Structures are given as C-alpha cells and as structure tokens.
C-alpha cells in the first residue's frame, strides 16, 4: 500500500494538469490585463513622479545656490562701490577742507592786511590831526603871546620859557 501511495505521489494526475494549465493561463491573461498592467503602470507613474520631484528639488537647490552666489557677488560689488564712494567722499572732504583752510588763511591775511591798512590810515589821520592841532596850538600860543603883555623883557622871557616847557612836555 505504501509503495502504491508513493507511486501516486510522483504520478501527475491528468485532471489536475488539465485544470492547472487552464486556470494558470486564464489567471495569467486576466491578472495581466486587469491587475498587473494597471498596478505596474501606477507604480511606475509614482516612481517617475518621485524622481521628477527629486530632480526638480535638486535643480531648485542649484538655482538657490546660484542665486546665493550671485547675491554674494552683488553684495561684494556693492561693498566695493561703497568703499570707493567713501574714499571719494573722504577725498572730497579733504579737498574741501584744504580749500577752506587756504581760503580762510587768505581771507584772514586779507582781513589782517585791510586792518593794517586801516590802522595805518587811522594812524596817518591821527598824525595829521595831531599836526593840525600842534599847528593850531602854535597859532593859539602865538596868539596868546601876541595878546599877552610883551612889554617887558623879563616877562617875555618867562613867557617863552613857560611855553617852551609846555611844548617840550608835549
């Protein structure tokens, strides 16, 4: 009995072969059409979507990097420009300062010169005024002398010496 069972274990039954063939081929066709095709297409679509998303993220990252580097470049340029502008401003400031200094000096010199001239003029005017006054004084003295008593010698002498004393003191 065991031998018979063993033999039937490795003896493929025609019925099962027949049904397996039909079922398997039918399953292959039906699953292929209604399951594997849509499933594999869907998976492929999703994979492609993920791939695209990743690559676009990468390109966005690259763009951002580029943008960042260009930003830096612009920033550097701006910094350099600012530096030059500052330098120019400093130069201009120094120039203005130097000019102002020269102008001020010359103005001061001019003012000093005018002042000196004025002083001179004033002095000359004072001198001429003094001269006039002296002349007037002299005339006044002369008048006084002439008006006073010139009768005696003594008196004349005293008068002259007095006058002279005053003059010397002046």
């Amino acid at each position, binding site marked *: 009995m065991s031998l018979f069972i063993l033999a*039937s274990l*490795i003896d493929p039954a025609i019925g099962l072969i027949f*049904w*397996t063939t039909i079922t398997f081929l039918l399953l292959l066709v039906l699953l292929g059409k209604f399951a594997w095709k*849509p499933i594999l297409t869907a998976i492929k679509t999703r994979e492609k979507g993920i791939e695209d998303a990743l690559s676009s993220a990468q390109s966005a990252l690259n763009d951002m990097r580029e943008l960042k580097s260009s930003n830096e470049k612009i920033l550097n340029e701006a910094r350099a420009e600012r530096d030059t502008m500052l330098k120019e401003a400093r130069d201009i400031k120094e120039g203005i300062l130097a000019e102002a200094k020269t102008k001020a000096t010359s103005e001061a010199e001019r003012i000093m010169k005018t002042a000196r001239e004025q002083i001179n003029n004033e002095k000359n005017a004072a001198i001429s005024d003094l001269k006039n006054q002296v002349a007037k004084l002299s005339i006044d003295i002369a008048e006084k002398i002439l008006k006073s008593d010139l009768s005696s010698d003594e008196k004349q002498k005293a008068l002259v010496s007095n006058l002279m004393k005053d003059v010397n003191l002046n």
Partner: protein
Amino acid sequence: MTGKSNTRSKISGICLLIMSIFLLSSTSLNANNQPQDEAHHEEVSTATLSVTEDAHNADKPVDIAAIAFEHILDAHSWHFWGEGHDAVAMPLPIIIYSSTNGLKVFSSAKFEHGHASYENYSLVDEKIVSSDPNESIYDFSITKNVAQLLLSAIVLLLVFTSMAKAYKTQGVISAPKGKQSFLEPLVVFVRDDLAKNNIGSTSDKYVPYLLTVFFMILINNVFGLIPISANLTGNIAFTLVLSVVTFIVTNINGNKHYWSHIFLPHAPKAIWPILIPIEVFGILTKPFALMIRLFANITAGHIIIISLVGLIFIFKSIYIAPVAVAFSLFIDILEVLVAFLQAYIFTMLTALFIGSAVADPNEDGAHTSDDDKVTAGH
C-alpha cells in the same frame, strides 16, 4: 505577529490532532480490503456507533505513513473532519471522459467515500476504475486540489483587481493603504529584485508572468498550511505545469546566443558529441529541478508536521503531546517561512533561466569574457 502564528499553529495542531483521531479508524480499516467491506456492512446494517469501533481500533498499531499520505494526496471529496457516519465532507463534481461512454459528470457523493459504485465506476484508493476492462478512463474531476486551485485563482483575481482599483480611486501620488501597502512591496520586489536583476533590460515583458507565478505559488503555499485545506503546491501535477510553462517561456524567447551556446559550444569539436547532449539535457533538467524542488519542499513540510502529531499515537501517551505540539508549532512557523521562500526561489530561478536565454552578450560583459577565456584556452 508571533502571537498570531502561535494561535494559528495551535489551532492547526489541535485540528490535526482531531483529524488524526478520526482518521485512525479509517486507515486501520483500509489496511486490507476484505475486513473493510465487512466492517462497512456491519456499520450500515447495525448502525454501530464509532465508540465501539474506536475502542476496537485502539489496540491496533497506527499506520502514520498512511495518514500522512492521505493528507498529502488529492481526493475526490473535500473532507473536513469526522469519520464514517460522522464525517463532514463536501462532495465534489466528478468529470470523467470514458473511451466507451464519453463524458460523464456526477457528484462524488455517489461513491459514498469509496463504499459504493455508481453505474459501472467505483473509487479505489482515490482512483476511479471501471468494471469494464476494455474501458479506459480519463479523470478530469474537480478534485480537492482543483477546487483549491480555482478558489485561489478567484482570491488572487479579487485581491489584485481591487488593488489595481485602489490606484485608480486614490491616485498614484498617495501612499499605499491596507493590502496595497502589503502587496506593493512584494510586486516591486518581484519586478526589481527578481525580474530586473536576473533578466536585464527586457525584463518588463516577463514581469506579469513572474508576478502570476510568484503569487500563485505563495497563496497556495499559505493555503496549504491551513489544516483542512488541500496540498496543491505539494502536488507534482501542479508544479509540473508551472515548470513546463517556464520551460516554454524560456525556450521560445531564447536568442541566438542561447542556442549557439548549446549547439555550437566554445570547445574543441572533438568533445562536441559529449557536450551537446549534456547542454540539451540541461535545458530539461532546469525546469525539472524547479518542479521537484517546490513539490518536495512543501510535501516534506506537511509530512513532518503530521508525523510529529502522529508521535502521540505511536507512543500512545498523552504526555508526549506537549512535545509533539511544540515541535509541530516550530515546524509550522518554519513552514510559513518556507511558503515565502519557495515562492521566491521558484520565481527567482524562472527569472534566472529566462535571463540566461535572453541575455545579450554585448550587454553583459561577464558572458563575453567567459567565452573569450574558453576560446583562448584551446
């Protein structure tokens, strides 16, 4: 996960135990045909209950091998549990083509589990025989295995068409949900790791075939682990068909390089008479190995589990039961691994054979250099 397996294996262990108890009486009866008929008559006429039968049979040695093979082999009715009058079984349609009477279709209930004959046909050891010696019979019955085959095909169709529908309704952007999230990695695994790695650039064409083979074997391996189910992937007829399909797919797609490797090997012409038959033989041995590997692995697993449970009846002691259950639990968990592993191996080797048949020597650097080495050698 472990918790589930435990419960399932315990249930399967208990079921096997119960089934073995019930099968005990029948196999003893089957041991020789004469007493069987007598016992049957006795059963029918006096309606003796199985209590006395069991008590009578308890003294006889148990033929564990017969029980094991009864579980592994195909049957014309789907037996759930019970024996004799208590048997709960589903009769299946018998379809036979007779050389004299043509096509005949009737229910297996007509045979009354081999005790009765219908017209001039009777069931002897699950084989339909005719009383007419000149009549030859081709049995196309929907046996237990065929019924499970059809059931698994329907389950596969329902599962994968609903999965395909899920992509349509939810769109492809959203993450997979439910059974989609369990099956999608398997589908992608078959497509990338089995098909693309072994076949190369033309793999897309073969992916539907590989997926069908993979899931067909996987679902029937898993179904086979359920106690009352049929042992379809452990049946040589089933593995034969799958390997024949692989053989056909491999050889009709074989390119010039593949055939020249067989009929014009890079070797001295003097040894061609030896080499060519070996290469031709090799075409056949590859699918033959596929057929034997799946059949033997699944059958062996089932035999081990039944034998372990059978230990209880060999030792005739309840104290051996915890050991037997513990071992069969371990083997049962191992069988879950084997169920996936064998589906993987069958599909992987199929992909490998197709890959070797369609490999473009210009694309694959290893092949060319191998051939060059051989050429340079002589």
